[in-house]
């Protein structure tokens, strides 16, 4: 059902952005809002990252040196919440805002005023969350998964703030998702059929449906925590006929699709970058779309693989094990397609390509450990150890975040009108790549050898590994400052970027000048008759 977008009337155009702070406060321009999202997520990335530095500093040696265990738990909790809801998700929403309208030949997002709101409530959500750290009794200290009853009966008074802030984050995500769906359904340029859309749009389209489906469930879970703690309900309290394990079912019903919410857009980014620098069309466009949809569908059937140790009957353990293993099939298809895209291409290795290639390899390593974790009998050993920590950081840092870096380098010339400093970009890449592996790879060993996660102190056997991990952590943290430098330098000046700085790139975003004008595609463009990436 392709909707033909007719001519748009724009009588009251400003062709340049209005000056001053009000431009940002009241903007309904998708590019401005995209920029806001991206800067916000970068700031949150640094805030969440500095909490990781506190964690790694405390874990540098056995014994308690810097922080109290209670504060340590707040750091792990808020680090997780900020990175998931403050860094990765808003970064992808920022990319969606900037790129989706340009990729489908639309003048803006479909619901620009809602777009403004969905961004501007976010800073409040995180201000509340961060402020809770300074309350008496401290902020949330129950892990980002906030298992009841640790988050209900046994939590500090700031839990209400945590709940409120998660509600706001959820509302923001839902509004963002609605906007993406309506934009893609209604605003595609004439001739831009669904199967001609770039994969980034496809993966975001599917992600948006996942968001609509599961963010409300998260809202329900935090609401139940709130009423259990403050209003005497017993959803998760055995005394009143509830069950703490029920909380985990509800949470992970949200939580597992959430994992894919953070990785599907990354697939889209990488599917744009690899063909561009291999100078060869994406292999298996249609199968990529189907694989993405299959992963999204399966993500609703695997939630209890996070809960194998809670005591489930054998048949349930087997069901969730099999479904989880099945996910590796469509994921494998994607990886194979990327490799086939590179095969017999004509590759160059600019920074975006380097990050995309690192993504493919390191995300696959995260996928391997994920497959190992799916095997229930061995999961009993891996569960809640550093093996799990290593696994999801490979998927989220070298997966999601590397893809965001790749996207930033890829589209920076389009956003700023300048080429970034390639030397600095490469420096950033190699520094990140080496440090991130020093940081996360040894965690596999610590976990296998038996180090539980979320502990502020550990037995002597883990001392060497943790020291190496911490050094990697500090190095990775510092490396990200290079990125900040590259971006600022690129905004301030540099070589003028042509409309299409990458000779192998394809897609409507490269048809408009660099930097992209404040308004693009006021008149819908002519659209190819083959998918841009399959041309």
């Amino acid at each position, binding site marked *: 059902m392709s909707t033909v977008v007719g001519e748009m009337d724009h009588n009251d155009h400003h062709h340049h952005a209005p000056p001053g702070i009000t431009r940002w406060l009241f*903007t309904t321009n998708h590019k401005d809002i995209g920029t806001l999202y991206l800067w916000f997520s970068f700031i949150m990335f640094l805030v969440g990252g500095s909490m990781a530095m506190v964690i790694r500093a405390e874990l540098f040696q056995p014994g308690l040196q810097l922080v109290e265990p209670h504060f340590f738990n707040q750091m792990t909790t808020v680090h997780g919440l900020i990175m998931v809801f403050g860094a990765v998700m808003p970064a992808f929403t920022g990319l969606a805002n900037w790129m989706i309208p340009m990729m489908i030949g639309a003048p803006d997002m*479909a619901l620009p005023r809602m777009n403004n709101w969905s961004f501007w409530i976010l800073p409040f959500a995180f201000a509340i969350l961060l402020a809770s750290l300074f309350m008496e009794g401290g902020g949330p200290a129950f892990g980002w998964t906030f298992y009841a009853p640790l988050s209900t009966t046994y939590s500090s008074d700031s839990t209400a703030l945590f709940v409120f802030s998660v509600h706001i984050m959820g509302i923001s995500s839902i509004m963002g998702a609605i906007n993406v769906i309506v934009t893609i359904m*209604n605003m595609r340029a004439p001739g831009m059929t669904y199967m001609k859309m770039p994969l980034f749009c496809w993966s975001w389209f599917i992600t948006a449906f996942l968001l609509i489906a599961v963010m*409300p469930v998260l809202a329900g879970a935090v609401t139940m925590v709130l009423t259990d703690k403050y209003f005497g309900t017993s959803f998760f309290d055995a*005394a009143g*006929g509830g069950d703490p394990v029920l909380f985990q079912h509800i949470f992970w019903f949200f939580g597992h699709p959430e994992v894919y919410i953070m990785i599907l857009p990354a697939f889209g980014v990488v599917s744009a970058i690899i063909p561009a620098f291999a100078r060869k069309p994406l292999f298996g466009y249609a199968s990529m779309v189907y694989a993405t949809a299959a992963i999204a569908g399966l993500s609703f059937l695997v939630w209890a693989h996070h809960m194998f140790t809670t005591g489930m*009957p054998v048949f349930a353990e087997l069901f969730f094990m099999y479904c989880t293993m099945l996910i590796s099939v469509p994921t494998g298809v994607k990886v194979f397609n990327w490799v086939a895209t590179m095969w017999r291409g004509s590759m160059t290795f600019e920074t975006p390509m380097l990050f995309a290639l690192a993504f493919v390899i390191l995300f696959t390593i995260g996928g391997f450990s994920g497959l190992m974790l799916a095997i229930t009998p061995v999961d009993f050993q891996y569960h809640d150890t550093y093996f799990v920590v290593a696994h999801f950081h490979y998927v989220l840092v070298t997966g999601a975040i590397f893809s965001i870096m790749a996207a930033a380098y890829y589209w920076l010339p389009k956003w700023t009108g300048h080429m970034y400093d390639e030397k600095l970009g490469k420096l950033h890449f190699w520094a990140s790549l080496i440090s991130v592996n020093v940081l996360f790879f040894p965690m596999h060993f610590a976990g296998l050898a038996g180090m539980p996660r979320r502990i502020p102190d550990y037995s002597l056997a883990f001392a060497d590994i943790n020291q190496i991990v911490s050094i990697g952590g500090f190095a990775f943290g510092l490396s990200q400052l290079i990125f900040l430098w590259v971006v600022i330098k690129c905004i301030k000046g540099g070589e003028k970027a042509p409309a299409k700085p990458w000779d192998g790139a394809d897609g409507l975003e490269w048809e408009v000048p660099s930097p992209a004008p404040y308004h693009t595609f006021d008149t819908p463009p002519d659209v190819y008759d083959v998918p841009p990436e399959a041309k």
Partner: protein
Amino acid sequence: MSQHPTQPDNSRIVRRLLLTVVGMFAFGFALVPLYNVFCDITGFNGRFNDGQAAANTKAVDTSRTVNVQFITRVNKGMPWGFEPEVRSVRVHPGETKVVNFLARNPTGKNMVAQAIPSVAPGEASLYLNKVECFCFNQQPLAAGSDTAMPMQFYLDPDIPEHIHTVTLSYTMYDMTEKATPDALAALAQPVN
């Protein structure tokens, strides 16, 4: 600022999506009863079919015996004494037994408690039927007094062959703050 006229079908899609959001929010809460039903059907998590069972009508299977163990616990911060009269009984499937549980309120105030059952293995909970149990209701106990509370049960003769031991655990929770009117009324009566 650019204003794009919202197309008519924008609002239709938005409406549907918002409806989905509301529906999924409700679904989150619907998971609570769904989970309970699921647990009752499968014995998931050793949760109990808490309702009162009808007396056994099937023939007693004297060919085998099952060891039924009792575990009693009091919740953290709950001062009651709470113990089964016997640690375990051996029963034939289908045979009805009565076991007394002894509770004592050592404190100087009247209290109301609720016992929460749990069964291991979870599968066995499907076959453990209670005809009469103190855990169906809140239990009031006046300051310093004690009581014997009966529990009458039988194992369904259909209980699978591989189950040789069934453990029934009760955790006693302090419900004084959330007491039902019945329990409070019982407390108000003079001790006889």
